[in-house]
């Protein structure tokens, strides 16, 4: 391990206890306890080891449900790993998921202040950043309107502006590059590139392979919570596309074996191909 890393993760694992995940009632819990059923467990991530240096931009790619978002949640400190160690050096800011509205009844400005407090920024800093956040979000008169009147694109713009304005050491982005209109997309790409250039670490979850090839230094392919490949964006993207195609073909073959209706097959192939 080099000494100058921004993020180091060693044998990271996140386990979900399905017993508590949604729809648990006292009745089923008591039944489980009385019958001594072992807890149903599920590893969303396991044996994930990687390192990110300052100034690097890491893409995390993989099919849906591979654990990409869970990885970002761990890096952001939202979730604690069940095993292994994660060391994140520096201030982290993240935009995980679209439309980070803090309070839909409050105005855009009030949401910026509230967001700053949620992120743990000192009050003076938020006041100082406020004009630039408002400026970047470019919402016009809507900045003083309640958040519930915003479109989802506008909410995402405000969220992106808040998350990136704090000038974090490490920026975590989950599928946010595709937000807003074309104009804002260009602006947000420029902002991310700026942050990458300013020797900050970026971890990005995306399905936009063009972006990965063009702007990331490294990439990780996750499948079913395991790292399949870590390496240069070109080879990782290539492998990912190969494996998606292979998975789609396998599904098709399986469907044919089961004697399914050919119309359903066409749909399955289209879904696989787009990824």
């Amino acid at each position, binding site marked *: 391990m080099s000494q100058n890393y921004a993020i180091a993760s060693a044998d990271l694992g*996140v386990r*979900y*206890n399905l017993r*508590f*995940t*949604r729809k*648990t*009632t*006292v009745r089923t*819990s008591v039944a489980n306890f009385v019958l001594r059923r072992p807890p149903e467990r599920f590893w969303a991530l396991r044996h994930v080891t990687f390192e990110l240096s300052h100034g690097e931009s890491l893409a995390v790619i993989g099919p849906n449900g591979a654990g990409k978002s869970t990885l970002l*949640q*761990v890096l*952001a*400190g*939202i*979730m*604690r*790993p*069940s*095993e*292994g*160690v*994660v*060391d*994140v*050096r*520096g*201030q*982290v800011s*993240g*935009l*995980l*998921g679209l439309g*980070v*509205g*803090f*309070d839909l*009844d*409050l105005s855009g400005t*009030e949401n910026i*202040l*509230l967001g700053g*407090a*949620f*992120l*743990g*920024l*000192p*009050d003076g*800093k938020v006041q100082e950043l406020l004009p630039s956040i408002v400026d970047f979000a470019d919402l016009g008169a809507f900045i003083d309107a309640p958040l519930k009147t915003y479109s989802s694109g506008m909410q995402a713009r405000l969220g992106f502006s808040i998350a990136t304005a*704090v000038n974090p*050491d490490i920026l975590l982005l989950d599928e946010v590059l595709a937000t807003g209109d074309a104009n804002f997309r260009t602006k947000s790409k420029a902002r991310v590139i700026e942050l990458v250039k300013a020797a900050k670490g970026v971890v990005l979850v995306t399905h936009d392979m063009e972006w990965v090839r063009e702007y990331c230094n490294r990439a990780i392919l996750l499948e079913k919570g395991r790292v399949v490949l870590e390496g240069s964006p070109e080879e990782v993207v290539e492998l990912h596309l190969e494996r998606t195609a292979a998975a789609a073909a396998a599904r098709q073959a399986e469907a044919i074996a089961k004697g399914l209706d050919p119309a359903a097959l066409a749909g399955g192939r289209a879904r696989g191909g787009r990824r």
Partner: protein
Amino acid sequence: MLPFRAMSSGDAAATIRQSPGGPSFLTLLRQGIADIVSRRRLIRYLVQADMKKRGTDTVLGNLWWILDPLLQLVVYVIFISIISRRPAPDYPLFIFAAIVPWKWFSAVVTDASGSVVRAEKLIRQIAFPKIVLPLSIATAEVVGFLWSLVPLGVLLLLHPARLSIMLVWFPVIAFVQFVFTVAVAIFVAATNVFFRDLGNALGHVLRLWWFLSPGLYSINSLESTNFVQEHPIIGDLFGINPFAVLFEAYRAVLYGTPDGALGTAHPPDLIALGVLLVASLLFLALCITFFKRVEPEFAKVL
């Protein structure tokens, strides 16, 4: 290995180091208190946001803070006048001294139980100390409680013979109740994440608790009833019911002795109140620790 630290303050060199394993009781308690102290401003914003939203949807707005306890008083006065042959003298004041504090408690507990679950989206997107959620609700409800003191004050002024200097004890009793309330709020907020049934059961538990507490009656009058003489356990329950202590204390300073004689306001039972305060502080420490212990699971369960 450094203990786990959530995305904290603005200092640039903040380091997050995460590893599994359970910190000790005192570490958790210290972390919980540090969370609260370092996020005072967040709690303030959340309280302000709550204030702003309340009443904006209704015609009468904030007036409901005064109307709510008054209407509840009217309901109980009508109900008791029908079923009871001989209610205590100045009965409205007798029960209002308990209704107002109880409304405060039940509002906090009901609202706090859903506080973490409601913030589900935020919890999955940002790391922040979740304990601010039930705390901001408990704090916001203090304002509601202060508003409900307006009708209580008016009712007291209508009975000038019952006014006394003993009212200085009122804030002390309210403080003890606040400590107990915050502890319960933190507890239900965390538990409801894992057992959503709590939300359904809570309303009934609170109602039963209210009727088993000496709010509409005095402890003395209860001990003489047949039911309690046949089931002594009901009587014993009062020994461990914080609201038996609190209601008796409120009534001592606002109303006087339970027999209703005028000018009998007296200091509350300070020993009982002191014991309750110490027990509540311990319970609060336990609840903060419990909350901190299960907090890392919230993002997975929600």
